[in-house]
């Protein structure tokens, strides 16, 4: 069985985000970029399924400028077999991304698609669900456990207040939550090997998908800043302030 893992290049989660002065967006010039943490978990899960003998091939795909090839190589170093780079300069919304991925699904015919539940830049949490809609597949979102058996997948999902398990016939879409696994680090030999693994490039406009969006960003501003408060000297003073000044207890 083939597993398709779509991944996204995002700002590294440890970097302090700065909004541009002209309010057009976030400043990404000379900022450390990385594989989106949830995508890393998706790659790891696919690799584990392959190691367990449930999958035979892992294909990773990413959409963006040539820079995304860096993250595709990272995924290859973690254990993916080949990569597809869908090239575009445009910033796409989840719907356009899902439409492109649906074309890739039609071409590659994977038995399972595993992807991160959300990217830590746009924070949309939409692509997996939209891809499931466009391909007519079942969806196991926010997965903390994935079990394959008899042409079906059981997905344990992190829901508010607990866990829910659903069963979906394959092919299906799974989106990853934090608890699914702890991604490994790529070893140096694997990083070297990844450089030789196949990486195809296709232009986004060759898929016959409209890449225009009806949503425009009017402005991006920093959040209201928080003023630092005061230091208290003792527990008694703290309790007193919380009771009588902040009135929260």
């Amino acid at each position, binding site marked *: 069985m083939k597993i398709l893992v779509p991944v996204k290049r995002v700002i590294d989660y440890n970097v302090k985000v700065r909004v541009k002065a002209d309010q057009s967006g976030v400043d990404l010039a000379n900022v450390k970029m990385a594989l989106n943490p949830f995508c890393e978990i998706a790659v790891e899960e696919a690799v584990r399924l392959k190691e367990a003998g449930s999958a035979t091939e892992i294909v990773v795909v990413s959409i963006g400028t040539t820079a995304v090839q860096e993250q595709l190589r990272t995924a290859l170093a973690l254990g993916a077999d080949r990569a597809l780079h869908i090239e575009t300069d445009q910033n796409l919304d989840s719907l356009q991304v899902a439409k492109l991925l649906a074309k890739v699904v039609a071409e590659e015919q994977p038995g399972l698609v595993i992807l991160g539940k959300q990217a830590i830049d746009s*924070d949309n949490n939409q692509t997996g669900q939209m891809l499931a809609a466009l391909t007519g597949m079942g969806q196991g979102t*926010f997965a903390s456990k994935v079990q394959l058996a008899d042409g079906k997948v059981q997905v344990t999902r992190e829901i508010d207040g607990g866990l829910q398990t659903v069963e979906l016939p394959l092919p299906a879409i799974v989106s990853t939550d*934090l608890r699914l696994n702890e991604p490994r680090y790529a070893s140096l030999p694997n990083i070297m090997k990844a450089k030789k693994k196949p990486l195809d490039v296709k232009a986004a406009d060759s898929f016959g998908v409209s890449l225009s969006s009806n949503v425009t960003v009017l402005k991006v501003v920093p959040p209201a800043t928080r003023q630092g408060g005061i230091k208290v000297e003792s527990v008694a003073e703290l309790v007193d302030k*919380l009771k009588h000044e902040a009135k929260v207890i």
Partner: protein
Amino acid sequence: MAILIIAEHNNQSLKSETLKVVQAATAIGGDITVLVAGFNSAATATEAAAIAGVTRVLHADNAAYEHQLAENIAALVTELGKDYSHILAAATTTGKNFLPRVAAMLDVAQISDVIAIESADTFVRPIYAGNAIATVKSADAIKVLTVRPAAFREAQTGNNAPVEALTAVHDAGISRFVTQELTKSERPELTAARVVISGGRGMQNGENFALLNGIADKLGAAIGASRAAVDAGFVPNDMQVGQTGKIVAPELYIAVGISGAIQHLAGMKDSKVIVAINKDAEAPIFQIADYGLVADLFTVLPELEQQL
């Protein structure tokens, strides 16, 4: 303008998130229809009809909707949604699950996690885990939004809107509910708690997290942790508050032995009042805390528990 809201409930009763979404819909303006899709959920439909501002309630009661499976709920909402200008659901794990599926089937974008309504087509939402706030305008014929409940107050009740039963059943047949385990905790959920107390690397080990229990009991608080504490294996990562964990905005957030990495701040800086307890006076957490106590947490915690 006609707004469709998909109610959040557990079949027996309506969840408060729904009242907050109605409040957000009121800011858009127009007729508000609430859809209650569930099984043996008549009481929930009655509750929805009592929310002020609701024009009517649609009630789809069938086993296919019992567990809010995204495939079935989305099919129903897509069918109904064509007649509306806006479709809203709470940005909970339920709403986040089925609503993007609806948007894709309607071939429109979804605006996620809306925290303010500027106008009928312009919305405000956090990006980069709240480190930037975007104002976006949608030209789609149908605006599909998930609404962050913490950003809106609850709509009033005291209404008696008509309830209309829907008979058409949408069972996509591509997903099956297996089991559900809801955490049986006396404590509230992290994302819904009025008070959250979190421990960081300063807690030194998992056993020491027990020091937070007594305080949490007294305050009715949920217990969280920083990524450092999770990575060190002190506690499971469903307790993680931060950019890649849970985003919380309680009335009171108590950070214990947490230095205040950007990662963590992204998950809690919208809390109303922040208390930091840390023995390092230079810890960045003090820059955003309303009340800071520079002290050893192992002496402070028992004292705090006693004085509450």
